[in-house]
């Protein structure tokens, strides 16, 4: 809880290194970039938290907005020159835990958490619609090689469903045995953890692990980097179960020669999702996949890898979107940056990014100019090329 950090948080000097990527080209803290008041920078946020702890300011909806509009993208952790840098996210999440525990959260956030508690997804949609996208895809049965863990965005959001379908179709075409949990799948809890509802997170972890054990799951492949992150790094008691992100499996199959990719001529750029990149240091795998598709030219955005600019969707923001409704919304900045590279396709590997960036392409009127594609959609196209 917060009190664990209360005697540390004053160590932030408010120097602002964390506003930038490592070469300082642009503002790289999505919430600061969106609002521009110092209060929304990492330093401002930490100082306000400290002020709240000291009783110098009272809780307010605006304070909560400051605290919850951090997407936990980890740019600040990457750039802060201080020894405590690794703790910054814990400080922010610790504060959220405190606020959640005291029921001091804005309505959107309590609804977000309530929905996950009641329906297993943040939108409060019926559980039995979770696999509405999955016609022809089997339920996982003991003995299948992989449990394909689809996650909430993959199950309910149109863009996520496209991704889930593309990857499932691809898996099917390779003959791998796999299955999904369908309506029995529950939220993975990554966002619940980062939004600060520790109790609910622990409950979800327990439910999910029990389910995996009941079905004798040995390997899980996740669609979302968020699910990958929570299962890989936060699920205590997962035991021997191996967790991979779908890009890892894709590359493995390419490298083992299990699939033959055909030429696809296109200029693409790639957006590193925070929970794959900064959280799990998976930067090369998606790029290797792209390299293996003949004819694909990868043009990097200026901010890539450790310096990637978050789409604005982290920490539940792909649902309640505290950073939306502005031309300075991170997703809109990011698609403009992608377009600026001259690429015609923006490749993503995360369903939350897919939703955020898809909306942004429409708002920026880039439809037909910049196409958003999940990497397995691209792989699938390449496989199907005659």
């Amino acid at each position, binding site marked *: 809880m917060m009190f664990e950090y209360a005697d540390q948080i004053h*160590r932030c000097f*408010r120097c602002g*290194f964390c506003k930038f990527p490592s070469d*300082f080209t642009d503002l790289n803290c999505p919430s600061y970039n969106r609002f521009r008041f*110092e*209060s929304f920078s990492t330093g401002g946020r930490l100082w306000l938290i400290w*002020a709240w702890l000291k009783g110098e*300011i009272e809780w307010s909806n605006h304070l909560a907005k400051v605290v919850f509009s951090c997407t936990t993208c980890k740019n600040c952790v990457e750039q802060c*020159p201080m020894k405590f840098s690794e703790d910054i996210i814990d400080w922010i999440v610790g504060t959220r835990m405190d606020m959640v525990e005291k029921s001091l959260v804005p309505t959107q956030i309590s609804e977000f958490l309530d929905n996950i508690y009641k329906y297993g997804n943040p939108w409060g949609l019926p559980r039995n619609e979770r696999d509405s996208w999955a016609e022809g895809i089997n339920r996982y049965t003991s003995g299948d090689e992989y449990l394909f863990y689809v996650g909430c965005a993959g199950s309910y959001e149109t863009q996520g469903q496209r991704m889930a379908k593309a990857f499932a179709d691809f898996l099917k075409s390779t003959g791998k045995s796999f299955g999904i949990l369908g309506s029995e799948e529950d939220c993975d809890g990554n966002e619940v953890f980062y939004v600060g509802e520790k109790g609910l997170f622990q409950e979800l972890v327990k439910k999910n692990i029990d389910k995996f054990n009941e079905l004798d799951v040995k390997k899980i492949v996740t669609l979302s980097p968020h699910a990958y992150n929570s299962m890989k790094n936060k699920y205590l008691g997962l035991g021997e179960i191996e967790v991979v992100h779908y890009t890892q499996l894709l590359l493995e199959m390419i490298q083992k020669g299990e699939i033959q990719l055909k030429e696809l001529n296109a200029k693409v750029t790639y957006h590193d999702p925070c929970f794959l990149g900064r959280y799990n240091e998976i930067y090369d795998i998606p790029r290797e996949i792209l390299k293996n598709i003949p004819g694909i030219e990868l043009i990097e955005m200026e901010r890539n890898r450790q310096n990637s600019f978050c789409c604005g969707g982290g920490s539940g923001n792909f649902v309640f979107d505290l950073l939306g409704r502005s031309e300075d919304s991170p997703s809109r900045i990011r698609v403009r940056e992608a377009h600026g590279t001259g690429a015609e396709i923006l490749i993503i590997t995360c369903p939350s990014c897919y939703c955020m960036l898809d909306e942004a392409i429409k708002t920026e009127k880039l439809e037909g100019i910049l196409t958003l594609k999940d990497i397995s959609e691209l792989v699938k196209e390449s496989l199907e090329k005659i």
Partner: protein
Amino acid sequence: MIEMNTIYKSLVEIVDEEYVSNRKEDLYIYSQDPGMMEPHEPEYVVMPRTTEEVEKIAKLANDKKIPIVPVGGSLSLSGLVIPHHGGIVVDLKRMDQVLEVNEKSRYVIIEAGVTTGKLKAYLEKNHPDLRFSIPDAPPSATVVGNIVIHGQGRLTQQYGFNSDMVTGLEVVLPTGEVCKIGSGSVSPYWFSLAPLPDLAGLFLGWFGTTGIITKLGLKLYPKKKIRDIEVFVVEDPNLVPDVINRVTHTEMAEDIFIGAQPYPPVFKDIIMIGMLLTGDSEDEIEFKRKMIWDALRIHIDSKEGGFMMMTPSIKQDLLEMPTSSTTRFADVMKGGGFEYCGPIIPVEKFPEAFQKLLEITTKYGITYGNACRIIGRSHCMMFSFGYPFNRADPENVERTKSALHDTNVASLDIGGVPWKPEVPAQKMIMEKMDKNTLELMNRIKKVLDPNGIMNPGNWEVE
């Protein structure tokens, strides 16, 4: 209350609701900087995007007689952006465009909110042969904030204070008029302040008390391909002025800085003099290195000093621009703060200043970091008495404040002038200042800012 509502509404009309705040949290953040001065809240924070918006804000403030405080990165650390009398804080960082680079006449025109980090990145990407005199402040400091306080950077030893590199300004006066200063007031080219009367002096060093700078023309310099560093180490502070004199005589170093600190123990009792070498070829670097070695031979032979062997990581740290190690000093006590009084002093006063540093830190039982930069060819130097403090420990904060007070007194005693002085230090300077000079300053302020709305509390004669 009604008046406050009309002001809020007027500000919203000027810059849009998104960029005006009177919310408690924003007022709290803008009531302080990372230094040690007492906070004071403004009534509003506003973030203009254009000169026209700044002009309207100034007119509104002047009309209603409300204070305005221009804010850049808030990193001067001496409370210069604290709205001591409330009013409107004008955060200029949305004015963040690099407007023009003239490669042949080597100058850049930028908006007031361009950060040192952004300008560095912009030049590296678009004009790799050009550079500016970047300070070692965090990259979120603004270039304009830096010149307003007569900052110093990596090219200061060669070309003087960063404010000496100004080629032009666009300024919104406290009464709302917009003025151009320098060649840009006559011609489309912002190449220099001369040959016109030097009006830039009305705004540099004034801490925003005479107007808001909205655009800046700044000299750029050739960027050499290779950079290297040599560090000369002595134990006796009395040797430092001679070492500096010899090295500056060679005119071979780009930047010269001095550092001393008691921790870690390997650094205790030594004074390090860093000399940046730059060149377009290894031969050029070698030539410069040899010239400097030869100049210091006398001290090497007498065994009073010597060049330091550096691990690649130390070297990399010292070559980094801006260096993050200065910023990391704030975490020395795990306390999130440091404050420095950096008086500008004659170079020969280094030993005296060093002695004062040791006396003051011993008296108050605090640690220190000393980081100096040579200004011009040894024309003067910035001597930093840097004190880390723990903002969570009020007793430690009070002790460090007392040390800072003594430091300001000591700086004036040895013949120096506190740089970017806090309000109390400004008062000490003004007390010592020639009375007619003080009267002139006062008169200028009154003419430019008849209602006393600009960053009140600063350079204020009671």
